[in-house]
Each structure stands twice: as C-alpha cells, then as structure tokens.
C-alpha cells in the first residue's frame, strides 16, 4: 500500500511547477517536503490529491493508476496553510462533515468526533463556530476534520506558518505522536529545515519544481548530495567556501592556506567546495589540525542560549552558531577554527564527494 509518482510533471504556460518527479511514499510513513516558497511543494501535493492534472507522468496508488480519478473518490484529506473550515457550520459539524458524507451512523459519528476532538484538545469548542476561534484552534479544527476519517493520504501544506512560534512547537510535537501508529501516508510541506528535522521521517528536498534529494531525514541531513541540498537543509544555511587542493596544501579562496590532514589528504588535487555547519565552527581549537582562519565580526546575534555570529574577511563570509553568550563588536578581529573531520567536500560541479566522519551512534 504505497503512493508512487512516476516521472510526474506539471507545466503551466511555460513554467515548470513540478519537473519530472519520481517518488514513492510508503503507508505509515511521515514524509516532509522541504523547499523554499515556489519550490513546487504545493503543486506536488495538489497532484497527489488529484486537485490538478499532471501534464506528464502518472500517480499510482497500490500499483494502480489513479491519475484520472476524481478527488471525491480518493480517500484523502488536506490541511491548508490558511485556516479553511466551513464558516457556516459549528466545529462539531465541521469535523463530522466527512463522516456524514460517508453515510456513517449517528452514534459512530458522535463517537469519532468526540475522540478526535479530545485528541486535538478542542472538545470544549465543539459548539462554537470556526471564525470565533483563535488561529491555533481553527487549525486544530481543520486537522481534526482531516484526521477523523481514516484517510489513506493526509496532506499538510505548511499548516503551521500562520501560527505563533510556541504553538507551532506544540502542534508539531502532537503531530509526530498522532502519526506514530497511523497506517496512512502523511505528506507535510514546509520551508523550515528545523521543522523538517523535528518532524523526522523521510525528507524530500525540492527546488524549482525538481526533486533534489530524498531519503530518511538524517541521511539527507548528514550527506546532502550537492551544495544546494546542503544549503536547503540547514538553518542557518551551511557555510560553503571555494577551495583548491594542491599536492601540498589546501587554499580557501586564494586566501588562507592549510596543510592537508586527515580526509583532506585523500582528495585529488583540484577545485572543490567545502561546506561546514555554523554549529561546527569554534572560537577555540579542539584538535591541533583544525583549520584556523582570521575573520572580522560583522554582527553577533544573541538568542539567550546561543549566539549567531556573522563573520567575514576580504574573501568570504561565514555564520557561526555558538552555545552560550559571545558579545563581540562589529569589526572586531577574531580567529575561528574549522575541525577537519566536520568538513563536507563537494567537487567543482558541486556534487558531494565526502561527508564528515560519523560520530558514534549516529542516526537512530
């Protein structure tokens, strides 16, 4: 029981909304589509739902072609970014509506509605009307309506963007738990890397309508196929620096020269892109072969627990994510240290050639 997209494309007057996508979603899986706005997340979901027709390719469900099937006949549900509920129905009736249409018995409907409502903690609101509720409550109602019928495919189109920061955190956590046991296919679109990480499951990176990379969230995160993937899936974006490896040394932007140690030694001479996550750069050397670079502080942003430090030099700039508070003034010079074993290496056409050595344990 799986949903398969077979070289699926949708082009609207010349613009590729979705470009030749090949993906499979397994039952009981939680799938995150991660990409910037207009990356094709929504378009892809609409194709899965059957709300739009593809210009090319097929959608297969349990192996059979459902591309042409009407929305009503597919057993799906969808949650939108804007809070969409029937404004003229009470919360109760909103949640009940899919069941009523499924000609379910009154008692059964009542049971399910109550159950789902309590699951999403909106039981006390059942008699109210959607527009009387806060954004969070409205979205909970929408989710309840989506979950009350056991849809085989549940689509979330950035459901949390219009909610408060803390609410997002809560609902996100609840979602993960809600879908743990469910046997449906959940697809969730978001623009935020951290959300993708928090939700787990499998992650698919989209860019300009095309699939960049897809797989278990940690695999994608730990070994991004190219610089694009690396930057899409890192917040703040991964630092990427151009570098040249000679027989004797590695040079970053003709600026800082370093000896070849560890993995670097294994790289054939040539041009590369080196990536490092903001959180891996340190202000004090951890190992003696850390790459030392002298930079200037452009700006340091303190978020209480961490400091985001934007540093630059005449050739390139980097972002550091440091635990604790580090107060520096703009323009202050400082040395930063890049641990060699945390470097991502991409070849001259930006394809991954080396990932950092995995820390013990790794993905779970």
């Amino acid at each position, binding site marked *: 029981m799986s949903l398969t997209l077979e070289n699926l494309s949708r082009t609207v007057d010349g613009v590729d909304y979705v470009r030749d996508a090949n993906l499979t979603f397994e039952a009981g899986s939680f799938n995150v589509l991660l990409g910037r706005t207009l990356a094709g997340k929504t378009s892809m979901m609409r194709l899965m739902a059957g709300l739009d027709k593809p210009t090319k390719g097929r959608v297969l469900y349990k192996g059979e072609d459902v591309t042409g099937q009407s929305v009503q006949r597919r057993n799906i549900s969808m949650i939108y970014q804007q809070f969409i509920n029937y404004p003229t129905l009470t919360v109760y009736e909103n949640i009940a509506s899919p069941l009523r249409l499924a000609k379910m018995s009154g008692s059964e409907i009542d049971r399910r509605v109550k159950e789902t409502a309590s699951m999403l903690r909106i039981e006390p609101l059942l008699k109210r009307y959607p527009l009387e509720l806060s954004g969070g409550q409205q979205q909970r109602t929408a989710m309840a309506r989506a979950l009350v019928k056991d849809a085989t495919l549940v689509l979330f189109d950035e459901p949390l963007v219009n909610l408060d*920061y803390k609410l997002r955190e809560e609902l996100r956590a609840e979602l993960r738990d809600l879908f743990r046991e469910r046997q449906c296919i959940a697809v969730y679109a978001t623009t935020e890397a951290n959300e993708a990480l*928090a939700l787990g499951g499998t992650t698919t990176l989209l860019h300009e309508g095309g699939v960049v990379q897809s797989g278990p969230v940690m695999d994608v995160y730990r070994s991004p196929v190219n610089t694009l993937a690396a930057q899409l899936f890192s917040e703040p974006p991964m630092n990427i620096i151009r570098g040249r490896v000679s027989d004797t040394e590695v040079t970053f932007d003709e600026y800082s020269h370093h000896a070849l140690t560890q993995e670097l030694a294994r790289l054939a001479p040539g041009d590369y892109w080196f990536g490092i*996550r903001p959180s891996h750069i340190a202000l004090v050397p951890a190992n003696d072969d850390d790459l030392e670079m002298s930079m200037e502080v452009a700006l340091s942003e303190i*978020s209480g627990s961490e400091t985001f430090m934007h540093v630059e030099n005449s050739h390139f700039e980097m972002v550091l*994510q440091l635990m604790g508070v580090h107060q520096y003034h703009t323009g202050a010079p400082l040395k930063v240290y890049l641990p060699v074993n945390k470097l991502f290496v991409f070849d001259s056409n930006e394809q991954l050639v080396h990932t950092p050595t995995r820390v013990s344990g790794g993905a779970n």
Partner: protein
Amino acid sequence: MAEIQLKSLAHSYSANPSGPGDYAIRQLDHVWHKGGAYALLGPSGCGKSTMLNIISGLVQPSEGEVLFDGKRVNELSPRDRNIAQVFQFPVVYDSMTVFENLAFPLKNNKVPAAKIKTRVQEIAEVLEIEDKLHKKAKNLTADEKQKVSMGRGLVREDVSAILFDEPLTVIDPQLKWKLRRKLKQIHEQFDITMVYVTHDQLEASTFADRIAVMFDGQVVQFGTPTELFEAPNHTFVGYFIGSPGMNILEVERCQGGVRFDSTELRLEPWQSEILGGMKSDNLKVGIRPEFIEISPVMSDDTYAAEVRDVEDLGTYKIVTVKLGEQQMKVRQSEEFDAGIGSQVNLLFPGQWLMLYVDEFLVQEQQ
C-alpha cells in the same frame, strides 16, 4: 528621538469592561530608553500590538499616561507624536513608484528635494532595493513591498521612535536572517529608539538588546536575552523563551528542599531560607533542558531517569526522560547516544535550578 514612558497604562476594547478579562492591557508601567533596540515578545492576543498602537497614538488608552521625554502625549495624534511604524502586512501606496513611496513621509515633512533624494538613496541601498526605485510599488513581490514599508519608516531621521509590528511575517525564512541583520545594522548606524513586536523569541533576541515579555496584558519580565534565558522570573517566561521551553515541575515542601512524587530536590540554602518565610503552597521548580547534565557515573546528587524519546535535530538532540512520574526534556550534543528505554543519571546544577512561588521566581537578595 525620545524616551518613551508608559504610566499605569490600561486598555480595554469594550466600552465598559466588567472584569480583568476584558482588558487587553492591565496596569502596565514601562520605560523605553533613548536609542535602545527593544523587542516586545509574547503570544498572540497578549496585547503587544495594542501596546504598540497606544505608543504610536493609533489607539487611545482607556487609562494611564503615555509620556515622551516626560511630556504627556495621550492627546497627540500619531502625526504630532512624530513616530514611525511598520505594520505586519506590507502597506505601500501602489499608485506611486518605490522612490515616491520612500519620499512620501519626507515630502509631508517639507524636506528639501535634494535632501530627500540623497536620503531615499541611502535607505534604498541599506535595504538593497535601489534597483527597484523606479518600479511601480504595486508590481513588487510581497517581501519587496515589506522592505518598502520598512523603508518609509526608516527614511525619517527626526522620528522619536520606530515601531515594528511583526514586520517579517510575510518574509521567507531565508530572507528573514538577512533582513533582521539589516535592521540591527540600521540601528547601530542611526541609533534610533526601536521597538520590535514579535511572537518569535529568536527574532526578538537577535534583534533587541532588551526584551519585554508580555503575558495576558502585562509585562512579566524586561531584560537582556541572556537574563530571560538564564533567570526567567516568571514560569511563563521560562516556558515561552527557549525551545523546548523550561522544564517546570509542581513540587511540595519537604525536609531540606522540595519534593515531587518520591523524588527530593535539594535547594540552595538561601532558596530554602526564603521559602521557609513564605506561606503559599503553589511551588514550582524549573530547569532548562540546556542546563540538565547527564553524568556517566551515578552519585548521590544524580537522579536516575529513563530515556523515553530522542529527537535528533542535527546539531543537537532533545532527549525526553522520565523521572519519577514526570517527563523532562534534556538538550544533548549530537554525539549523545543512549537508546530509548535506557537509564541515565541526571544532574541538576544548583545555580540553574529555579524556584517559583506563585509563578514568580525566588531571587537571592544581594
């Protein structure tokens, strides 16, 4: 530029408020000093936008005073208060070009044309829209429009303050980083009093030197991001700042400290001392996931807990542990690897264990 003071301010949208519930803002005293970069942080419906509109004069407070440099301005209209404000959703005059939009406030202030030109240029460059200057505003993308509305606020040099009402809502995460940085630079460049309303703690703390946290109509804490993080003086601040928020446990008094279930927590002497002098039984302890340590060895100040869940967020992990009947979250480095169900020894460093009586922090007297 001015110092903005709010004196015993209260506001209700209903004409004759019956109970405290009808108040968007209640009994609020606060001072925004000259030239500071401030954030006003809180969940939606906590009254933060109301407060902003009261400062700018778009809303008349039902009680209390608004003072600019000690002068009462309640009766003054926004135009006379000479305040700039940027709204949550872009407001551009779509019949004008970007240039005309940015020039508009200056024109209204009868600024000489030459001055306008240079000033607009300057701001346009800071916001990186100088290439759009002659486009019609209505043909811009959402975030360009928002930049323009910001520009209209920033372009005036003489303003007493600039107020931002969740200005980055419509902006892509990737761009948010850049824009927030811009604002900060602008503040350092022109040092104007800036008040920035948001529900996003990261936005707030990265923009502001000091943050006022609002919780149903009141400012519960006003301090630097670090203060808010390390010593939240109200359980709400603990919960709201930091992600995940502070672990907060209901406890009761016991010999030499406090207790929940069968677990006894030792308190700092001064904490127990103060606690001894207090009647209330509404006691809570809080400790941040970042400050809970997991020690390899068991000792008499560690607590044995069971790992319930491990959330891998790439650069770090959030571990959910069960201590007695209580769930707690612990932040660990990405190297952490203990399987679900395994036992760990929690260590609560004394200086990070906060005690709350009636939701407010018990602080050590100097």
